[in-house]
């Protein structure tokens, strides 16, 4: 007799989704991951809009990732028109991306994942049972948000990041204020990894195909993508290497890279050798065995190391900006020309690609956005199937609980995934 186990809605993830596991007796036949967020059709909305409107509209794809969407869109438009921004602008953008990384990783680690580690249902449980830990997490998250708000002029959907530069330079006293705030939470960031470990005695999952931007000297950005098989290819040619198909039961498309379902995010970055900086670099050796070659259940540890890295890097960037003072500032004029611009960034959840086509007047005639969650969708489905099969016959609360935890370890961002990519 066939039956279905359904988890609906998925909780403690961003956006709307559900999971169905189809059983034949006790045997798992297949799983169906439904990313059912209502489509907002951004690629269609951008067509016919002027180039200056593109980054402002497209950052609304997602709130958690609005900063990295905005920066990636700015870079793509600037690439299309051959614009090079000033050093101060580049450093400031890197600073806000680090702020976004701190806010996103700390939200995931302390508010969404921690309840699982402690056997609680959510933030209200944390507030009652682990108030100190929640306060620590929120203090870290607050600093990520302070960076985003001070640099971006607004907490979500930053306004101060504009084509060719910044709306306004960040004043010296704000930089000093942020430096002090980071110093206050650096010790907590350095200890975050202690909350998580790779689960022992768990069923094996399919080997991951890590994908990340190749190290370029500038964290979060790069011109080439690389895989764990040693292949690499230019971001600008991503359409030749990433193929996508519409999945009947989901509003997000499946993506394959060189024929394999890829895995992106903090775990992939660390596996592909993204440099961690001093502090987390010292912690890494003791966690190495729990991260290198592991599946997505190691992602929380990787995020914890990256949280420390982002805090350390933010501090270094603030020092650089303070030293730079008024030098190297200034905005670059942006003049439209016809052509295509593509750019990729490492978003908190992994590789994010924006690509736009413009006509000679700078009107958008083509738009394509590839998000980390759509890149991860097929790997997640494969992992869910493997885990469900390994848990055949388990008690139903354990069964759904383990599957939901696996989904959460991916830190899926369903708003991002659903708006899809044109073929």
């Amino acid at each position, binding site marked *: 007799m066939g039956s279905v186990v359904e988890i609906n809605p998925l909780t403690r993830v961003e956006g709307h989704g559900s999971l169905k596991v189809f059983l034949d007796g006790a045997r798992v036949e297949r799983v169906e991951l439904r990313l059912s967020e209502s*489509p907002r059709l951004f690629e269609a909305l951008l067509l016919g809009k002027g180039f200056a409107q593109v980054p402002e*509209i497209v950052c609304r794809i997602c709130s958690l990732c609005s900063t990295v969407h905005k920066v990636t869109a700015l870079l793509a438009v600037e690439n299309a028109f051959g614009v090079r921004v000033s050093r101060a602008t580049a450093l400031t953008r890197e600073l806000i991306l680090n702020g976004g990384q701190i806010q996103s990783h700390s939200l995931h680690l302390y508010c969404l994942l921690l309840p699982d580690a402690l056997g609680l249902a959510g933030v209200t449980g944390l507030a009652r049972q682990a108030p100190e830990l929640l306060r620590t997490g929120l203090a870290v998250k607050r600093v990520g948000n302070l960076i985003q708000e001070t640099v971006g002029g607004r907490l979500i959907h930053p306004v101060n990041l504009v084509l060719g530069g910044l709306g306004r330079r960040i004043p010296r006293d704000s930089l000093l204020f942020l430096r002090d705030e980071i110093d206050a939470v650096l010790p907590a960031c350095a200890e975050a990894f202690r909350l998580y470990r790779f689960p022992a005695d768990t069923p094996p999952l399919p080997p991951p195909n890590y994908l990340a931007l190749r190290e370029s000297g500038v964290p979060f950005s790069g011109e080439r993508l690389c895989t764990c098989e040693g292949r690499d290819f230019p971001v600008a040619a991503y359409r030749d290497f990433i193929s996508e198909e519409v999945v009947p039961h989901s509003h997000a498309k499946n993506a394959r890279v060189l024929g394999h379902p890829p895995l992106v995010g903090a775990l992939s970055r660390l596996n592909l050798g993204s440099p961690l900086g001093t502090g987390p670099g010292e912690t890494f050796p003791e966690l190495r065995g729990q991260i290198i070659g592991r599946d997505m259940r190691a992602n929380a540890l990787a995020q914890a190391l990256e949280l420390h890295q982002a805090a350390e890097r933010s501090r270094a960037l603030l020092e650089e900006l303070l030293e730079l003072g008024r030098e190297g500032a200034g905005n670059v004029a942006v003049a439209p020309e016809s052509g295509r611009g593509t750019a990729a960034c490492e978003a908190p959840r992994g590789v994010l690609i924006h690509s736009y086509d413009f006509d000679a007047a700078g009107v958008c005639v083509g738009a394509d956005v590839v998000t980390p969650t759509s890149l991860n969708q097929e790997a997640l489905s494969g992992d869910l199937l493997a885990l469900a099969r390994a848990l055949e016959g388990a008690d139903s609360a354990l069964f759904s609980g383990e599957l939901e935890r696996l989904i959460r370890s991916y830190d899926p961002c369903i708003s991002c995934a659903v708006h899809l990519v044109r073929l």
Partner: protein
Amino acid sequence: MRRPRLAVAGLTACSGCQLTLLNCEEELPEIAARFDLVHFPMAHSGGEPGAAGPEQPRPLFDAALVEGAVSTPGDLATLFRLRGQSRILVAFGTCALFGGVAAMDNRRSGRDAQLAEVYGAPGSGFRSFPPAPFKNYVAVDFAITGCPPEKRDLLDLLGALLAGTLPPVPCYPVCTECRSRENLCLLLERGELCLGPVVQGGCNARCPATGVPCEGCRGPVSEANVAQQLQLLLERGFGREEIESRMSRFTPEWDYGQRR
């Protein structure tokens, strides 16, 4: 005193309004203590509202804060259910109040054409209609505007709910706060397409204060003189199509008065 029971949920949106609640880092522990966050799937497992049984309180929620536009049959079902289960329904953010970014092209192109553009032929299988604000379907008791909403507006509402009331709503445009901050006027002094005069204030003119023109994310202010704003922008050399495209980014329905 009984803790007010809250639902926090989203329809077609970016989760930014719900994130605004989670971004109240300093206040969150106290909010969790003073309210019963019964249903908040983004941050909490369980608490899925089913049919209200005899043992469940009625209404199930003292207030439901719901973000997003209505664009699918599922959205509509969620909205009707939360409306029926809540004493106060709050349209949380610009999408819920005006339609928001997803609705910007409602007057220009059909939903089917947009779906086909993004998903190709398989897109025809998705059931979706033009994104619309809550007020097109249900009675709304209160609204918080903004894309994203201001934390302050959210905290004011929560404080008022604890006191058994609702907060006052500002009815002045962005320009009021912008002038009092003594910002350079981007519209008159720099000739930029700033929507400040017709857009709801309360954001302390965040964007103009960073040198970026108001994009209108808080929607129309009451008694906005839209026809005059249009005239002003036309006189400054902007094309009508460009102006309407910018105006409709967050609110497709503007009353252009005699200029329509």
